[in-house]
């Protein structure tokens, strides 16, 4: 299992369009991917409404967990995605 934490810097939080792209990218991996708002709910990273439903705001931290064959690649690519978009 691989995981990383990231604190959202975008003022709108995990907003719709990049969240959509994030979900699209997540869907390209075999691994089970979970996003958890630290101290809050968690959701399947491959589901847009689930991810948006977490209502992650600017300044809040999320933990992303990858579990499966390509977990290392998935975690690495997703962390990059967070850095570049949120």
């Amino acid at each position: 299992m691989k995981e990383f934490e990231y604190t959202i810097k975008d003022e709108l939080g995990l907003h719709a369009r990049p969240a959509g792209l994030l979900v699209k990218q997540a869907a390209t991996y075999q691994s089970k991917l979970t996003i958890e708002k630290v101290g809050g709910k968690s959701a399947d990273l491959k589901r847009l409404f689930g991810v948006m439903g977490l209502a992650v705001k600017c300044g809040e931290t999320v933990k992303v967990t990858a579990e499966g064959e390509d977990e290392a690649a998935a975690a690495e690519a997703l962390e990059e995605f967070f850095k570049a978009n949120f």
Partner: protein
Amino acid sequence: MEQIKGVAASKGISIGSVLLYQTGDPKVSKKQTNDVLGEIARFEAAVQTAVATLGELHERALQTVGEKEAAVFEIHQMMLEDLDFLEGVKDCITSESCNAEYAVQQAGGQLAEMFAGMDDEYMRERASDVRDVSARVVRVLCGCDGNPLEGVKGQVIVAAEDLMPSETIQMDTSKVLAFVTRLGSKISHSAILARTMGIPAVVGLREGFDTLKAGQEIIVDGFNGDVYLGPDEKTLAHFKNERDLYLEKKRVLRSLIGKRAVSLDGKEIEINANIGHPADIALCEENDAGGIGLFRSEFLYMESQDFPSEDFQFESYRDILQKMAGKRVIVRTLDLGADKHAPYFKLPHEDNPAMGYRAIRICLRQPDIFITQLRALHRASVFGKLAIMFPMITSLKEVLEIKKVVALVKCQLDEEHIPYSKEIEYGIMIETPAAVMATDLLAREVDFFSIGTNDLTQYTLACDRMNASLSELYDPRNLSVLRMIALTVRNAHKAGIWAGICGESAGDLELTGLYLKLGVDELSVSPASVLEVRNKVLHTDSREVDDSMLNLYTV
């Protein structure tokens, strides 16, 4: 006559008759089915069609309103392809043996409610996106997915519960004078689109919306968020006049796009825009700014949780320069302190922050922060026309220290074989009386001056600009402040460099004539003021400008 109040969402005034526009889902009733698989197949086909239509709308919006506003249709596509939505609908069809239309409405409604219940304004607005996509699928299912405003004849004011993004974009603006809605806020998609397309709009009328009747004559005042129902002669005449004045002014200003700002006696002045966020670049383009005269780099610091990295800054500067496509961008280095803070800087509490540890003082004492920013700026410089400006200068010594740091940064980049432009201009803000009094010496060391009249007024008049009780004393048109400007421009020209003004009073139309007379080379104003200032310059003869205010003996 009745008056109802909402939120002013898009500027302008319109007078016309109301078209009550029924939005949302067509009437859907629950029907039992024996063919669950058939309903699922119908649903899947409808989703395909809806996704394809959204693709077309996205293309169309890209061309008419730009990438940022068009993104909503991409989001809608993603929502339609989301497993939560797809499974929600299929589960409903299966478990209730019902028709697809009903299942879409149920599943979409549940998701919309989830968003509507969030405690975040941005996310609450997404409920209308979910309703929009569900309604789209339902319309496809029942074969009524044509353009919803197609039948509209003549010019009308569209009154709707809440206009969905796809509806606003499809509006034929030649038929629609304005729109008013019961729901929505300044940041809902419809409001943003209305502004981009230049149609007046008042949103969020709430219960006041119920008083609107089809065919009734109303006035929509998009400046103040007012709607007048069945206006009397006097009100009507007033607003017709207001509307015509606004349209005429807008027409005149739009006609100045692409023109240079040259006065009647042939003096040209560069008119640029002040901005504080990359998102504002669109406003610069829309208002035809000559370039960016002040790009406040604080957003990079204030939107971060920690010091922004060199790469992160580099990418931001590069994007800005590329978007401005060769037009000059003057980036002001870090100007934190005083009223602007980022917690991770851990700035000590000060009794008098306006005169405290801020701006260039931080940069020179904490060179790591400064060097990171300068490296990022230099690396980005090859992507456009960059100028770098240093704030809060009070002495020649500071300028010489800055130049040493710049030389060090260039030296580092040379060693690392990283390219940077050799054409970068380096300038300083003239915003303290100390700097003004040394402009003859400072001018020999830099490429340009930009006068920051906000702080210059505050420091010259020893008057805190945040103190509301002193607002009468805080006067950028004060004789001493104007003399400071005059001296600065004179000394700049003696040394052969240019001088501009980037404070609020750069946009003061009462002073435009004086600036021309003094020979100010550049004015940097808020994007929305660019064309107004250009208009003023075009109608001014600087030989006729009265500059007695520089010598006026008044009390």
